């Protein structure tokens, strides 16, 4: 039967390929490692915003070139990354925004995730308006005046109310609850991504159209446009304890790093690198600008920053 022959032939081919694979690798040299310790695999979660990409690729690049790790980047949402650390498919999250519920679940109860210290970045989440609006309506930065301006923010999506544009569905947000509990005549509409938010701000500033949107720092976009934050009722400790009853601003975040317990115990030199990794908002924004504005590939952007900042890198490696 011809079919059987064909199957046999494919089999022979595969066997041959494998046989060839077994013999020497010729002119291609193995990656050499600088340090004595073996690093092995390092799976870094990459969450969907540019600032995070900067963290991930700078650490990943150093781990590859200086420690000889076999780095792979996993594009996942925040909570999926936590889940991945718990199940062992992900080794580290390099920029964590709070998530007290997950800390309780994975760090305190399951003990599958370990805190690896702060990144040095200060995180702010809030509602922002484009600069032209803040100039024209100076009192808009007080949340008490938002209802006065609600009709300006109407869109086809907001059902007759003012529109509050949100980001990626996975981002940390209390916005729906805030609108409800502060009795604001607004409707949360989801933009879907950081790029969608930035695009909306750009077109709002260019066309002088009103926009109220969720945004955050550190973010490279502030170097292009000085967004103005709307002040919500002041954050006090514990005022955001019940997600459905929140009526205060977002807390200031000291962003931190996380590693899985399994990875922490593995003795990989990358564990120390991640623990030592510490930089400023400006550092991160610089790399992010390379990526988002200069359209460099994340790995190239990271390399550029690493080459320009040997001292900082050396401090993380000691």
């Amino acid at each position, binding site marked *: 039967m011809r079919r059987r022959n064909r199957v046999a032939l494919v089999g022979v081919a595969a066997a041959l390929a494998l046989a060839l694979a077994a013999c020497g690798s010729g*002119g*291609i040299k193995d*990656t050499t490692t600088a340090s004595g310790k073996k690093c092995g695999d390092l799976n870094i979660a990459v969450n969907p915003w540019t600032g995070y990409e900067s963290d991930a690729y700078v650490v990943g690049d150093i781990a590859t070139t200086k420690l000889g790790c076999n780095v792979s980047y996993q594009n996942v949402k925040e909570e999926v990354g936590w889940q991945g650390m718990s199940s062992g498919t992900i080794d580290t999250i390099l920029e964590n925004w709070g998530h007290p519920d997950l800390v309780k679940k994975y760090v305190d109860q399951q003990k599958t995730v370990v805190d690896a210290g702060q990144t040095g970045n200060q995180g702010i989440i809030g509602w922002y308006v484009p600069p032209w609006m803040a100039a024209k309506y100076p009192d808009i930065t007080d949340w008490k005046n938002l209802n006065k301006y609600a009709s300006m923010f109407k869109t*086809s999506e907001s059902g007759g109310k003012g529109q509050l544009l949100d980001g990626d569905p996975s981002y940390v947000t209390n916005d729906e609850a805030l609108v409800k509990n502060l009795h604001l005549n607004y409707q949360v509409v989801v933009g879907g991504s950081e790029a*969608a938010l930035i695009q909306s701000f750009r077109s709002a500033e260019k066309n002088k159209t009103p926009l109220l949107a969720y945004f955050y720092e550190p973010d490279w976009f502030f170097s292009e446009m000085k967004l103005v934050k709307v002040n919500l009722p002041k954050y006090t400790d514990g005022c955001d304890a019940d*997600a459905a009853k929140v009526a205060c601003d977002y807390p200031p975040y000291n962003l931190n790093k996380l590693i899985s317990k399994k990875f922490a115990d593995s003795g990989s030199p990358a564990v120390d690198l991640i623990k030592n990794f510490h930089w400023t908002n400006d550092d991160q924004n610089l790399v992010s600008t390379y990526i988002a504005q200069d359209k460099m590939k994340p790995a190239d952007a990271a390399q550029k920053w690493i080459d320009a900042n040997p001292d900082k890198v050396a401090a993380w490696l000691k």
Partner: protein
Amino acid sequence: MTVQVLARPVNKEAEPPTERAKNRHTMPLLGAVIVVWVVGWLIFRNHDTLVLSFQQQTDFHKWINDLRDNIQASAQHNWFFHGVIGKITTFFNWLVEQIQHLFSLPAFPRPVPQVGWLGVLVLLGWVGYAVAGARSAILVLVTVFLFGILGAWQDSVDTLIITLIAVAICVIIGLPLGIAMARNKLVSTLVTPVLDTMQTMPAFAYLAPLALIFGIGASSAVVCTLIYALPPLVRITEHGIRSVPATTLEAAGSLGVTKRQLLRQVQIPMAKRTIVVGINQCTMAALSMATIAAFVSSPGLGQDVEQALQNLDVGGSAVYGFAIVIIAIMLDRTTTAASERSEKQSAARVASVGGPGVMLVTVVLEHLPRWASEETKGRRPLPSKAFRRGILGIGLVVVAISIWLSRQYLSLASFPKSLDFGTDISNKVSDFSDWFVNLAEPVTNAFKNVVTYGLLNPLQSLLGESPFWLIAPVILALALILGGWRALAVSVVCEAIIFGTGLWHDTMVTLTMTLVATVLVMLVAVVLGVSMGRSRRADTIIRPVLDTFQTIPPFVYLVPALALFGPTRFTAIVAAIAYGVPIATKLVADGIRGVAPTTVEAARASGITRWQMIRKVQLPMAREALLLSTNQGILYVLSMVVIGGLVGGGSLGYIVVSGFSQDQLFGKGLAAGIAITALGVMLDRIARYTAARHGRA
């Protein structure tokens, strides 16, 4: 859970009279129901709409969350999750990783994979020749080389790996299952509803539970691809075995063959052609799912498209979308050519897969491009066996040398950067799209506003602001009038399920978007379909475009739609139209062409105008095809509207996406998945029973 589902109040008094609706009464009855609805809406607006705000959860949602926590907690030691599922997960992850190291990922500590790009290229070309012949081999070589040119080498190869592993498993499970179903009524009755559900359930709905069980990564990707790609193979296999003529079986039976011999020597060989068509359909479905699997961190091109969506990178999405399209063309043509080769008599042609025959067997049979099954003109005789053997043998030596070379030289191992034009192309496309979006903004905005304010918002307020106790019986009444008792029965169950998920209002919003998009899809489909059905030339121009649109995986559409219309419900609708139009158009065209030529001739002889011909003769005669095309249109649109949750589509799709990425919303997301499935089944059944009752004039 069951208690909650059954606790739905039934409003018997609001249901229409129970006698079976006669065709000629349909229109007045429909009108009456709609009048009652609108009046009720005017009086009771915004009462009992069952709105559940985003952060609110029902007990059912919390119960799923608890269940999830228990599963996660027990996953470490439970025999089932740790022992069985854990082993499966580890196995798939290991398998994919091994193959990746062989072909696509650096095989640490080597800086490159075991087999470099040249080796992969020549090897795949050789496989193409072995299974499908010289022309396919050339197609494979060109396509695979383009992976590198597009700067998407690794991800393209990864996509191929995931797709082919899933197809291999599909064949291992699907063929025996299909054969068993063809031979045993009981198996068929038991399995068919499961296949129905697998096909109606939008892929998005089962990603989260799968990721929970199989973890994120290759393993989940393989499993979800499997779920999506298996049904077409099973169904077509069953269909193929069943279609072996009874006379043939009797003849064989009279020769005294055993059942086993009958299967192996008569049924399978005779159904072989159809089975290969099934494998073709399965492969195409697997490819389209392998992209969506990016949401569970599947390696491959899906990741790139998702990144492009996140960064509003139209150029990137175009490049990676194109890579997916050429993979689809390659797989489709190669499997089709393989099936033609497997046919001894070269005169026979593939029974058109899109034909209503197979179509009616399935709920959503992926109706995929059929370039290759278009008349193969002037088929050349196949080369002799000895000649082929010779070529294959020489080819093998070439493969071996290429692999060896690709292991020796870096430029043959990793695709040279100087040949990588991906970034250039992507930047050009992005520039063009920026320019175009800027230029078209006033027009697109006006269009968006017309549809949103004129159609979407009014309908949404009618559906979303009506009290549930009004809208539920209205839907049931419509189901009864259109589809009869069976449609009513299914709708009752589905409504009860939707009610039980606690997401009634969101389901109504999703339903609105689905209906609006379906109306627009049918408008386009009828216009295009009629012109295709009436003119060969129109057909040859439009069909390839439709084929291309069908090969593009659903969420690639979102990127340009998002660039043009911003994050709105309308964006989701536009993407849904792009996704639903090709299948609907083809079915309409088939229907128009199927109108008996004698009827058309007779009408023409009576001297009617072209417009009268379309309106009075061709469209009414093609009613069955129109209904079928609406049915398919609805299901395609629904699956896309759900994915539209990613770009501001809101409602159920957004809840599914959020449930996927936010811990405390897991239960709600899963409930939304259930609601979507129930909505899909309900719409599908109403449409199918309507087609069955009103299809034949």
